[in-house]
């Protein structure tokens, strides 16, 4: 029979084509007015009204004494029962032989059902039947004080607050005859636990990283600082998402104008939704078009705590495992949280290595091109012959060769991040074999070029900040072009323009190149190099903190013979 299908024509089943139509414009304003008026075509308008979302005028409504009306409004706001994860439950409360109707609403999956049953429904439905001997003047107060044995509950009198609470894992309790409802914080959802850092790994130091929970993240920082002056100011971002956001600072250290500026920028963001601190960073940074980042994004609570103690401000957004810290200067992008934990000689050694890594990542390809094209005299004759011999069969000019290699390397890096974990090792093999061996064997590139690109890659891996590393990778291409165009003059031009861009940029009023451009007082001891920990007496001058001194002049009291001198020094 199957064979006949090829011989006899049969018309295929007609498949219905989907056409994406334009939305019909809803006259929500008119429909809303029509609801309460006797107007012509009211039914049609009411039909439209059902498709209209609840606007501010509904959310701003006060809670009514009439429970049925409240239920209607709640159903209207959430479009219940179409909205499937919204749970509503009606019940009765008995207060002194008087039966009151009640109603709760919450979102399934965002709340703790056991808590709702045990701490809200059970007391209301069962405890209310107990023999009550006291006189009840205010039923609302009685329910709040006696019938709801739950620790985080508040009275709410408008639907906007109720909606915000329910959207963020709350349970709203309405009782007939009350002008206010109760909003219980019963949030509980599946989330990632506190894990080890993935992009900022250290050997010495805390192994905790932030997760996507705002409160867990604030707690991680508070746990480290244990400072009564640590402030956590909460706000929400996103007109629709109302994403909770916390601005953290130490009130007797952080500069007031800086705190106000951060709060102003965060609060003035006018977007519908915000999902991550990556978006927030772009919305509050000073200059979008400068390649260098101007805000530090870290997943390490200890790093945030250290920076807060210096006078910086942190911004945490619910749903993001990265916390933003501002202002940021160039030196901070070269520091890691491990730097404070390892000994003075080691940290300075590793910082020198890191700076060399940055210089290599930024300039090595450009310098190589400049030297081989314009300044060959720098290369010893034997080496020059070796380079020339290795390039003999390569058909491209060295700049094209370099661009091909750099592009291929960026391709491997991007593919390595995106490729699923199970086949991740394939990228290494593909990259290593194809780029390393096959490209040389095929005379596409010279072996020296592989070495240059590999050393450059190693240099870029030594940069602790992901964003800074990105910026350097980007600018590197400009140096390659400049080196190929005008040799060292081109490189000098690139350095000048790059330095100008950085010198002109600011992060929340703090020059990006501080403390080197402008040069600030030398008392701050953690710049490119770091003084011994007992000599780090001052906070960064460029942050203008309220309290510039972070420790007494003699922090190691045991090192002083006379105990009295410590007290005297402390008064400095």
């Amino acid at each position, binding site marked *: 029979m199957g064979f006949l299908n090829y011989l006899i024509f049969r018309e295929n089943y007609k498949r219905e084509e989907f056409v994406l139509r334009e939305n019909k414009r809803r006259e929500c304003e008119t429909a809303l007015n029509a609801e309460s008026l006797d107007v012509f075509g009211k039914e049609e308008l009411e039909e439209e009204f059902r498709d209209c979302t609840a606007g501010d005028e509904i959310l701003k409504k006060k809670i009514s004494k009439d429970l049925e009306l409240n239920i209607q409004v709640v159903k209207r706001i959430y479009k219940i029962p179409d909205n499937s994860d919204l749970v509503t439950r009606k019940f009765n409360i008995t207060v002194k032989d008087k039966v009151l109707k009640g109603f709760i609403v919450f979102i399934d999956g965002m709340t703790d059902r056991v808590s709702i049953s045990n701490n809200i429904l059970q007391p209301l439905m069962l405890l209310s039947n107990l023999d009550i001997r006291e006189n009840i003047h205010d039923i609302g107060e009685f329910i709040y004080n006696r019938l709801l044995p739950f620790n985080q509950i508040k009275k709410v009198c408008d639907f906007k607050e109720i909606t915000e609470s329910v959207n963020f894992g709350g349970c709203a309790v309405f009782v007939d005859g009350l002008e206010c409802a109760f909003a219980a914080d019963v949030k509980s959802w599946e989330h990632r636990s506190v894990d080890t850092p993935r992009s900022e790994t250290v050997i010495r130091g805390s192994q905790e990283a932030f997760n996507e929970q705002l409160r867990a993240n604030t707690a991680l920082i508070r746990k480290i600082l244990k400072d009564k002056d640590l402030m956590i100011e909460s706000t929400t971002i996103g007109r629709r998402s109302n994403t909770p956001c916390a601005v953290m600072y130490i009130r007797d250290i952080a500069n007031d104008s800086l705190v106000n500026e951060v709060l102003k920028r965060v609060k003035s963001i006018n977007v519908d939704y915000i999902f991550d601190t990556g978006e927030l960073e772009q919305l509050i940074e000073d200059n979008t078009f400068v390649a260098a980042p101007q805000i530090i994004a870290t997943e390490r609570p200890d790093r945030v705590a250290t920076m807060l103690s210096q006078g910086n401000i942190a911004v945490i957004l619910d749903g993001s495992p990265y916390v933003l810290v501002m202002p940021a200067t160039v030196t901070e992008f070269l520091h890691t949280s491990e730097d404070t934990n390892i000994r003075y000689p080691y940290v300075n050694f590793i910082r020198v290595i890191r700076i060399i890594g940055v210089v290599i990542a930024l300039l090595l390809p450009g310098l190589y091109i400049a*030297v081989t094209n314009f300044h060959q005299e720098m290369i*010893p004759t034997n080496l020059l012959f070796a380079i020339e011999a290795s390039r003999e069969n390569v058909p491209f000019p060295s700049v094209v060769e370099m661009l091909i290699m750099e592009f291929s390397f960026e391709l491997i890096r991007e593919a390595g991040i995106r490729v699923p974990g199970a086949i991740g090792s394939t990228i290494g093999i593909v990259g290593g074999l194809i780029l390393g061996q096959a490209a040389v064997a095929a005379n596409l590139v010279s072996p020296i070029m592989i070495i240059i690109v590999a050393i450059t890659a190693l240099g870029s891996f030594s940069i602790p900040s992901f964003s800074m590393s990105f910026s350097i990778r980007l600018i590197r291409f400009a140096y390659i072009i400049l080196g190929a165009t*005008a040799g060292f003059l081109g490189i*000098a*031009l690139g350095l*000048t323009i790059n330095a*100008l861009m950085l010198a002109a940029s600011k992060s929340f009023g703090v020059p990006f190149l501080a403390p080197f*451009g*402008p040069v600030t007082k030398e008392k701050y001891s953690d710049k490119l190099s770091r003084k011994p920990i007992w000599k780090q007496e001052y906070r960064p001058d460029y942050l203008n903190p309220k309290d510039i001194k972070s420790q007494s002049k003699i922090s190691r009291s045991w090192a002083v013979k006379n105990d009295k001198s410590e007290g005297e020094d402390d008064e400095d």
Partner: protein
Amino acid sequence: MMKTRMTFGSWEAITVLVNSIFVQVFLSFPRDMAAYGGSAGWMVSLIITVVVLIYFSISSALYENIGSLDLLDISERVGGRVLKIIVGFLITAFLFFELTAFLGGFSQVLKMISLDKSPLGFVEILFLIGIIACAYFGIEAVVRINAFLLPVVIAGFLLITAGVIPQMDINNIFPVMGEGYGSIAMGSLYKLSAYSSIIILFFMIPFFKKKYIKRVGYMSILISGLLLLWATLSFLLLYPYQIAVDNKIPVFQMAKHIEFGSFLQRIESVFVLICSISSLLYLGVVFTFILHIMQKTLGLKKSKPIILPMAVISLTVSDILKRMDADMVNSKAVNMIWLTGLVLPLIIIIFGACKKVGKKSAEGGGEID
């Protein structure tokens, strides 16, 4: 505590002035010293430094009655708006001449030693891009980058001069008095022009605290004086002065003597790098201050719209000067023009001090610190 007002510190100001004076070492300063003073050329650089120190001590003493005013403000208070405009145009013309002469000079040097296959216009355009960027980002950024790029330049220069120490011969600076007192005196007079860029100091004063004026002035003159002296001395110690006067680009010639051997064979390319950075910074500073002075003279709200036209004009003038086939940097006649940078500020300061313009402005809630 760091201030948020547009200011810069004394270190930044010092580096700007040092670079503006020191940059001439990369052109022909040591050779000129040899030409004027023979084996005693190093004395010329010493004498001009001492003379400029005296000049500055007089100027700074007179500035006590002037406060934190720059030359244009002083002119305005002395002779009204007319004098301000006249002085503004004179100084703009002087700095513009300096810019175009050195733009051509540096472009030719770099073309000669590094970009011999590229047309001169291409090298000039690269410089032009640099100075346009400087002007675009403004005085604050230009001054700040001097603070950390100049030490790199000086380190490179010291590396070159230290590398030739084994080949130096003390006999080269004998006879000590070279071609005699007269030559040294005349050479010192002509080469006072090396410090003509000090005029920029009198425009930087409003940007830093008045109490730093002496520190900035003396430190700049002393550091640049030492560098000029060391450049001349090392050059004369390396070459007998008869040969020295024939060297076109002295520091580059010195660098060619060095051979490291193992991985970096020759380091004259380091000269290209430091010369490029230093000249870009210098030309950038001069161009930015030209725009600042023009803006202030003409009362313009913004200087950005005139950046591009001014840059194009400077390139054109530089080409015209080049076609004139005259040495715009070192000829005796031009050296006298360069002295404007020292004479004009002194005249304005003397008038300003006589009229005590600073005290008047302080009484009127002015700018004195």
